[in-house]
């Protein structure tokens, strides 16, 4: 591994923009294309939104705001252009990961959810791994290989 960063932030929807901007800023020195950067930002946005909406969303709020629930974002880069992004929450977990990853599957709470979050992550990244334990939380690990030929 060449470089790594880890941040932790409150599980608030307004932090979705912060999380994807932080990931994009971290990978910027690798000279990714605009498309690659947009793909990474979109995938991070999906994973972090899932943690906030599904991981913590149905838990009772702590104090006034749910500021004590935290989402962790880890970004790693490797010399061969490989990047790894991990998003972890300690929320309710996913009962059936396979079903949750099906395109168009949604828990359907009438909020115009598309059920496409995992599908978007899968298509914008090269590899997607989801591990979850009920009552413990969920970790999403995404890997992508950047086209680094132009930078050499």
């Amino acid at each position: 591994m060449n470089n790594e960063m880890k941040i932790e932030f409150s599980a608030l929807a307004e932090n979705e923009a912060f999380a994807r901007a932080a990931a994009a800023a971290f990978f910027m020195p690798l000279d990714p294309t605009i498309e690659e950067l947009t793909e990474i930002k979109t995938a991070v946005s999906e994973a972090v939104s899932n943690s906030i909406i599904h991981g913590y969303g149905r838990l009772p709020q702590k104090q006034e705001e749910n500021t004590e629930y935290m989402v962790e974002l880890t970004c790693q880069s490797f010399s061969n252009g490989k990047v790894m992004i991990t998003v972890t929450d300690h929320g309710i977990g996913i009962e059936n990961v396979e079903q949750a990853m099906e395109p168009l599957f949604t828990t359907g709470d009438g909020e115009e959810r598309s059920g496409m979050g995992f599908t978007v992550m899968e298509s914008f990244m090269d590899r997607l791994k989801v591990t979850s334990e009920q009552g413990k939380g969920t970790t999403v690990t995404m890997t992508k290989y950047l086209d680094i030929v132009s930078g050499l």
Partner: protein
Amino acid sequence: MEAVFQISEDILIACVKGEIDHHNAAPLRNSIDESMKAFGCSRLILDFSGVEMMDSSGIGVVLGRYKKLRKNGGTLCISGCSEHIERVLDMAGVFSLIRMADDIENAICILQGQEQMRMEV
């Protein structure tokens, strides 16, 4: 994220700018719905030419507006999609339901054309 609205005849044109995510999908959705209601429009153009990034929340916004409009006999057209936005919307099969135009002028033509076809029938 912000949306700038224009009106052309009874067509509401919503030019969306910035990034669309779960956090700002709700205010975007509300501002479009409120403008549709305020101007009494039954036709809508969602112009994405100013959108830099959109995650799957955008699919919800598009399909939500489509369902709402269809219920009231209205129509919707999308314009100005970058390759990225087209990819996200296409994943959910949005283009099997909703027409896409290169730009706003084109979208107006499509919506007016649909109206004309309906009148001829």
